[in-house]
């Protein structure tokens, strides 16, 4: 007589506690691990980023040298010639644009874009584990690779993105795909990540980001590629992030 009831309870327990959940990783810890391969949680890092934007008007390219510690980032444009010497300084979420000789540092909002689909926040070392609360949404394969799908919700209102869907490889512990959403839930761009670089950190050789490809959700012809080269782990002097240096 109680068999149907027991069956319902048993099914409910099973559905409410799927098998993968028993071995599911801690979402925030997984996010922290994946940040490492995108420059986060390192005492200091320097790299060169080449940004190529492709849209209906053609291609354009910029090259910049980036420097970051655990809180701050600084990028300096080295090409094209008309942008040479321009800098963006980031202290936490505070951002400034400095043009050589012409103006004082101009404050920027995280939303302001650099080129094509690349936001200012995309070129900084990634610290998603600090800025976002992670929640496991499930499992999904990306290009045949098993991934944990995380939903990242901004902890504060001043992060570059409100919500990110983030696919992190179960085996490699690296983010391979991301979708970026506005606060109203509208998808506005997506990105794919490659890790052909590697770094030596804490006695271990670990993969490091080599390419990020951003696709605009509305205009799929707009494609922005960030290539990362010349990666070096080094602790920068704190004055490197001062506005008047």
């Amino acid at each position, binding site marked *: 007589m109680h068999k149907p009831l027991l069956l319902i309870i048993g099914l409910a327990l099973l559905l409410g506690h799927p098998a993968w959940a028993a071995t599911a990783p801690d979402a925030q810890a997984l996010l922290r691990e994946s940040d490492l391969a995108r420059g986060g949680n390192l005492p200091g890092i320097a790299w060169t980023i080449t940004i190529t934007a492709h849209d209906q008007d053609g291609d354009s390219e910029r090259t910049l040298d980036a420097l970051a510690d655990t809180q701050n980032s600084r990028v300096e444009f080295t090409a094209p*010639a008309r942008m*040479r010497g321009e800098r963006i300084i980031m202290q936490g979420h505070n951002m400034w644009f400095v043009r050589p000789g012409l103006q004082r540092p101009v*404050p920027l*909002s995280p*939303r302001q874009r650099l080129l094509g689909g690349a936001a200012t926040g995309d070129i900084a070392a990634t610290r998603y584990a600090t800025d976002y609360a992670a929640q496991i949404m499930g499992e999904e394969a990306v290009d045949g690779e098993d991934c944990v799908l995380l939903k990242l919700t901004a902890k*504060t*209102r001043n992060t570059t993105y409100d919500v990110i869907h983030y696919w992190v490889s179960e085996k490699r512990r690296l983010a391979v795909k991301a979708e970026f959403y506005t606060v109203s839930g509208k998808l506005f761009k997506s990105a794919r990540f490659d890790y052909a670089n590697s770094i030596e950190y804490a006695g271990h050789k670990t993969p490091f980001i080599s390419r990020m490809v951003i696709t605009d959700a509305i205009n799929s012809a707009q494609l922005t590629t960030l290539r990362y080269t010349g990666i070096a782990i080094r602790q920068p002097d*704190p004055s490197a992030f001062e506005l*008047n240096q």
Partner: protein
Amino acid sequence: MNITPLWAITRWGAAVVLAAGNLLPLAAQAGDFSSRLEILSYRQETDSWGSSPFTRVATLPDHSLASELRPDLAWRDEHLAASLKPRLAATQTPGETHVSTWLNEGWLRWQPTPGWSLQGGREALLWGPAMFWNPSNPLFPNSNKANPKREVVGKDILRARWQIAPGWAVTSINAVGRRESDTGPKRLYAMKLDWSNQDAAAAVIAASEPGHAPSWQGYAQWTASEATLLYGELAWRAGQPYAVANPAATASGWATASTPSHRSALALLGSSYTFENNWTLYTELWHNGNGLNKADAARLGSAASLLAGQNTAIASAQLGALINEPAPLRRNYAGLQLGNDSSGNTSWKIRVTRNLDDQSMEWVGMLDHNFSDHLQGWINLMHRSGARDSEYGRWVRGSSMLGFTWFAW
């Protein structure tokens, strides 16, 4: 042809030129050396109000052609850095060609240990989040933001900076001189305390100028959301003296006298918002306690008008004194700036400034277009409107600059 030699700069600037000029080539073999070269050419047209009394003593050329050569040299290694920015400009106005050279910036920096730096030389030490006016900076309150093609000329400064802790730094600033053509204090000592956290930044500046009471300045900015910035700047200091006209028993009927210098409050509140299409709107309101009140402004207006009707020989001295007016002239202002996404090949900005005391207005439009990675064309337009004696209705009615910039490397 009028040529200002490079050595007409102050002794500090000359010392830095010598030191950096000798050291940079040697040092280039050791550290990282970088350089850039920019060449500007433009034609400027200026239109004065027909009724302006000031055109009798200071005639603005209705057009001019100018070219500037701007090389930037920089070098750095682990503990030392140097920068040298000499400039060469040639300006042609009807009947005259003027060539000048100067050192815009040139400094040496030593970082003996992490967190410490000592720097000496000429630099444009700019700070403050506001777009229209920076009262928090006693050295550079007006930094040419209405015309971003004009460089801010540096001052000769010695400074030491100590990063006390993450997010905290203190800087000792000693401004030891300036070029003859510069405005602002000749000597100034200041202490600046900087603070920043994840979402906000602020600074407090105490400054002392020989012969003046100490002044206090500060600014704060807050990244309120991913699209919104809120900021403000404050100061409590004496303004630069300027001339006012008083009725007097002189040949012209007027005599100019320098205003007494007293400390007043200067304040600015502002915000910026970046729309989803990446356009950004800045809104600012500011109060200049050192500006002219209604009575002084009315006296200035009537004096200038009456002097304009008099014999030039009699009135020129007083008109010449009155023309050196402070900026901003009056006390209360509002400003708006809207600009598009500057990351594309075409960028534009529109700036509107309204004097809330006399209701005069200034409109500035800027358009830049990148023809290639090396060549940029640009146009800056300015138009002013207002009553005859108002700030923007009294001298220059408008101007245009059409130019090209060649970024050699």
